[in-house]
Structures are given as structure tokens and as C-alpha cells.
């Protein structure tokens, strides 16, 4: 197996899914954001976004905190240290895989 094929096979499957990749990329540059922001920026529907977030939380990449903004419930999302590492690794692998 050549290096490029090896890099492709080593891509993190949790992050590689387009919806989750959008979420992780958005969260990687900030401290935290809420559910509404991700809904607005990704264009995903609520159900799909929720399921992607649950998958990312299960992998330990995203920390989900339920809170309130006044009387309105608010879900705060934050990329964990592990999530940051995984995203960095993913980008490196992708770069290698796409390199000519």
C-alpha cells in the first residue's frame, strides 16, 4: 500500500463524515458556541445536527453542556482537548492523502 492510500485509510471516520467535519471545523477556532449557531452555520436540520453531536460526544471530541439563557434552554458545545488533537491529526492525514 502506498503512502497516500495509507493516509486515506488512517483518516478518522468520526470526523470524516461531512456534517461532523463542518461541526468540528467550526468549533476548532473558538472557545464555545451554542446549538443555534451550529444550526445556522452548517445548514443541517435539528435532528441531523443532534445525532452528529451525540456521535462526537460519544467519541469524546465534543463536550455538551445544557444550560439556560434566561428562561430559554441553551446547549453549549465545546471541542475537547481530544477533539482538537483528533482534528489536527485528521487535517495532517488529509493533507498527506491529497498531496501529489
Amino acid at each position, binding site marked *: 500500500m502506498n503512502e497516500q492510500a495509507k493516509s486515506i485509510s488512517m483518516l478518522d471516520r468520526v470526523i470524516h463524515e461531512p456534517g461532523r467535519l463542518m461541526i468540528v471545523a467550526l468549533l476548532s*477556532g473558538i472557545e464555545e458556541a*451554542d446549538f443555534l449557531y451550529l444550526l445556522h452555520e452548517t445548514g443541517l436540520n435539528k435532528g441531523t445536527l443532534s445525532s452528529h453531536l451525540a456521535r462526537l460526544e460519544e467519541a469524546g471530541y465534543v463536550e455538551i453542556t445544557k444550560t439556560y439563557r434566561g428562561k430559554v434552554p441553551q446547549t453549549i458545545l465545546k471541542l475537547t482537548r481530544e477533539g482538537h488533537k483528533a482534528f489536527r491529526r485528521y487535517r495532517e492525514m488529509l493533507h498527506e492523502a491529497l498531496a501529489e
Partner: protein
Amino acid sequence: MTTQIDDYVKRPMRYQNIDGLEELGIGLLWIILPLLEFFNKTAASGSIWHGRTTLFVCVAAVTVALLYGHKALKKRFTFPRTGYVKYRQTRTRVLASLLVAGAVAIVVAIATVFVLRLLEPRSSQTVGPVLASVAWGLFYIFITRMDAAWRWAVLVLLVAAPPALAVLPLGRLWLGNSPIVLIGVIYFVSGAITLALYLRQNPVPKQVVE
């Protein structure tokens, strides 16, 4: 694909001025501060407006009011419409930004003095406004990312109008401040347009079940 990922990583930074509040804040600052200085200079010597202490207190009060007002407006208008974002602000990043801003200000000030000495006294009236226009024009590009076609018209106005105003005969006292006030007005109007468009395009959604 990597470019698309980079775009998503940088997207939250563009979100900072999605509502035009950054522009509005800068605009208000550059309208109010020169006006305060103008009142300070023109007030009678026994007046409360005269004196450096009053000016300093007013400047501090305006800056604090704008900072808290900005936060309150974000909470009131932006977060319920398009979501809440908290940016990373590590101590080193804040310190580095302050150092860079200070260094740039010093370089611009030295360059201004140098150029003023080289040029004729008459043309020196426009050098300050030209430098200020270019600096605030570049900053405008930075904060708005030129995300709409109409912003190019604002940019042209921002770069051309203050130096043009500087050569108009408005009297010596007001001359130094008027281009800065104009920069403030342009920023303010641009921010108001951005805010109006934002509010029209983003109504408050019904409660999101998460």
C-alpha cells in the same frame, strides 16, 4: 477540500461582525471622542467641559459604555437570532494584539511626523487624514471581509472623503477633527446598514428543541 475546511475554521471570525455592531461601535467612538475634544477646546475656562480631567473621565465613560452596550446588544439581538459564540482569548493573544497595535500606532505616528516635515506646510493638512483613512480603510476590510458588493462603495468613501474634507476651509480648530468624525460617520452608517439587513434576514426563530 482542505480549502473548504479552512473556510469553516475561519467562519466564526466572520461571524463577529455579522450584525454590524463592530462597525457601529467604532463609528460611535470616532464621532463622540472628537466631539468631546472639540467641546473641551471651545468651552469657557470656568466651564465643567474645560480641562483635561473632565475629558479623561468622559473618554473613559464613553469607552466603557460602548463596550458594555456592545455586549448587551449582542445578547439582545444576535444570540437569539443566529446563535452564541465565545471566542478564545488567551492572555498571550490579548497581550500580543496590544503589542502589535501599539507598535503599528507608533510606526504610523513616526511616519506621519516624518512625512509632515518633508512636505510643504499646506499639503501637511491632508497627510494625517490620508494616513487615517488608509489605516481605517484597511481595518474596514479586515472586520467586514468585504462580504457584500456595497462595501466597496463604503471603502472608496472611507479612503477618499476624509482627505477631501481636510482641504475644505472649515476653520483651524475643527480642521483636525472633522476627517476623523467623517470616518466615524461612514463606519456608523455602514454598521447601521449591516444591522438593518441582518435583522431583516434573520427573524428570531421559534424556540429550538435541541
